[in-house]
């Protein structure tokens, strides 16, 4: 599968959009002493961008506690997201939901909920509603590797399979649930490939840092899921650059003990560096790429500051 040049450019824009907006949000959280939940997607941007760009407008997204990236990649209203995160009533949930409740029905981003596992079965219901209405679109739910340990994950794969519901479950596997890594949480030999195949579901595991891989696999899965009316699981290995929750994306966090030597992996696998390499390999000149980067960065910086100026925190 050949990915068009323009798609790489869109992906670059999307990844930078998520990065820059979240960096700004994070800074203002610190400055304003907002101590509430803030689950950043920084580091995992290629997962959201890859899935979103591979799908169609009519496809549906549903998210979790860490879903700013999914919302932005789907084209969710930036202003309303910033308002929501800072508790302004002009937000996408009128300031009632906050950072963990993203919603933009106009772009088929139908919500996000932070109780781990809840989103999975809710999304199967959303997908069943589409099926009953005879639509042929795909519903996608994003979860983490921690949420994939909830009973509802296994229950839903069975139930959605039973009802022939087209559903794509994207697992962003950053190895941690808060600060406990998978070794502490999963039986030795835990194998999602075996598990999902026992449920007769499709399964693919790839790197989530690499936009092009995510994009391609999502396209392939979309076609198969819709054709077979079944469940697919896209397992993305990714790197969370930030602390689990809170405005902290520092080297100190990345070198913290629980992460072992992950810092060195992080600096080698920034999705922005990877997509820049891909842009180069797909006909963009070095100067052009730097120029695009500058344009995107300043675009999102200025959007943020324009919106943020209108917000009165208390």
């Amino acid at each position, binding site marked *: 599968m050949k990915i068009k040049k323009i798609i790489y450019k869109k992906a670059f824009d999307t990844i930078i959009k998520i990065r820059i907006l979240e960096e700004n949000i994070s800074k203002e959280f610190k400055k304003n002493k907002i101590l509430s939940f803030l689950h950043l997607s920084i580091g995992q941007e290629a997962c959201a961008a890859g899935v979103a760009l591979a799908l169609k407008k009519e496809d549906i997204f549903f998210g979790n506690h860490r879903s700013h990236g999914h919302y932005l990649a789907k084209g969710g209203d930036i202003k309303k997201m910033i308002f929501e995160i800072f508790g302004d009533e002009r*937000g*996408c*949930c*009128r*300031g*009632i*939901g906050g950072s963990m*409740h993203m*919603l933009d*029905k106009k772009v088929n981003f*139908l*919500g996000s*909920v932070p*109780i781990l*596992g*809840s989103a*999975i*079965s*809710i*999304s*199967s*219901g*959303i*997908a*069943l*509603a*589409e099926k*009953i209405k005879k639509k042929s679109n795909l519903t996608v739910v994003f979860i983490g590797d921690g949420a994939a340990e909830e*009973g*509802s994950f296994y*229950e*839903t794969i*069975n*139930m959605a399979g*039973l*009802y022939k519901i087209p559903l794509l479950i994207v697992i962003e596997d950053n190895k941690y649930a808060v600060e406990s890594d998978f070794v502490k949480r999963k039986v030795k030999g835990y194998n999602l490939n075996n598990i999902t195949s026992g449920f007769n579901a499709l399964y693919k595991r790839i790197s989530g840092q690499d936009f092009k891989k995510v994009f391609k696999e999502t396209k392939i899965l979309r076609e198969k899921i819709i054709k077979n009316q079944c469940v697919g699981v896209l397992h993305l290995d990714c790197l969370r650059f930030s602390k689990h929750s809170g405005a902290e994306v520092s080297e100190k966090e990345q070198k913290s003990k629980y992460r072992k030597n992950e810092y060195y992996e992080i600096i080698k696998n920034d999705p922005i560096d990877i997509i820049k390499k891909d842009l180069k390999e797909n006909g963009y000149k070095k100067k052009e790429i730097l120029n695009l980067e500058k344009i995107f960065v300043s675009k999102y910086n200025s959007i943020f500051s324009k919106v943020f100026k209108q917000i009165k925190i208390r």
Partner: protein
Amino acid sequence: MKFNEAIKEATIKALKQNKKNLLFGLEVTNQGAGFIEKFPNQVFETPVSELSSTGLVVGLASRGFKPTIVYGRIEFALLAMDQILTQAGRWEYMFGGNYPCPAKFRIQIGRQWGNGPQHTANYHSIFFQALEFDIFIPSTPKEAYYQILYMSHSSIPSIFLEHRYLNLINQNFKTSKKKINIKNSKIYGKKKDDILIITYADTLPITLKAKEILEINNIFPTIMNLSFFPRRNRISKKDIIFINNFSNILFIDSAPFDFGILSGVNSILSMKLKNKNFYKLSSKNMPAPSSPKFMGNYYINKNNIINYVTNILKKKRIKLKKLSFEEEILWPNFTLK
């Protein structure tokens, strides 16, 4: 129509009226249930996965459907509390309004002999602080019938607590085609009488039986039976005004009274009304036992009510017959007047 037939008839009517009314649950597609034959595209057997089938229903409800999910016992619904309370119960509010999630949860609840401590919990009150739900606890076939139809039209998430104990209660009523109007409560008796009994759910039949005997003995209780607890305002002003006509108020509950529904009603009344004498009669502050020998002591019965009322009103004790096994333990089986 018997209580369980009323629920079935109303469910069939609701499924017929609107294709967006769907029915989910264990055993709902069984032949005996009689739904799947008529509505093959609206009735779904669920896997034994209460949490996820409830999530599925929440997802459907958020997309314009009005799905009902049935749980054979409240203990099974407890596995789905995340989806019921935290998702359906908060959905519209947490997403800033204008995003209805009219999922309907039909939960069977309460006593049945032999079912023991893990199939008989009377957890009505746990739903009462989930403020976004309309809560229905029918005591009669007519109430059950109209409440099911009301729910099937409503865009509010709803909890329907269904006492199997009432299944054989019969009532003759005409099913109306007009707009469905349901009431918070029903009064049995007059506006001014010796004592007001406030009750709900499965306690109504024995309370009515007790009333008959008391009346033969010239003691006149009025019964207020609560059956609909709308969201946010669980008890109506109109009911509070009515209650104010009485000075003796007796709460009768088949659930333990303390911190239950009627204890909540009691606290509201105590703050609003003056010079009232409140009394309570309820099952014990412990889980329900299995054997009929212990059950008889656990739940209140007709004779307990008669004795307590005569006591409160300082009347002569009425000579009562010992209750038969059927009366004390089995499902009540008579026609309401």
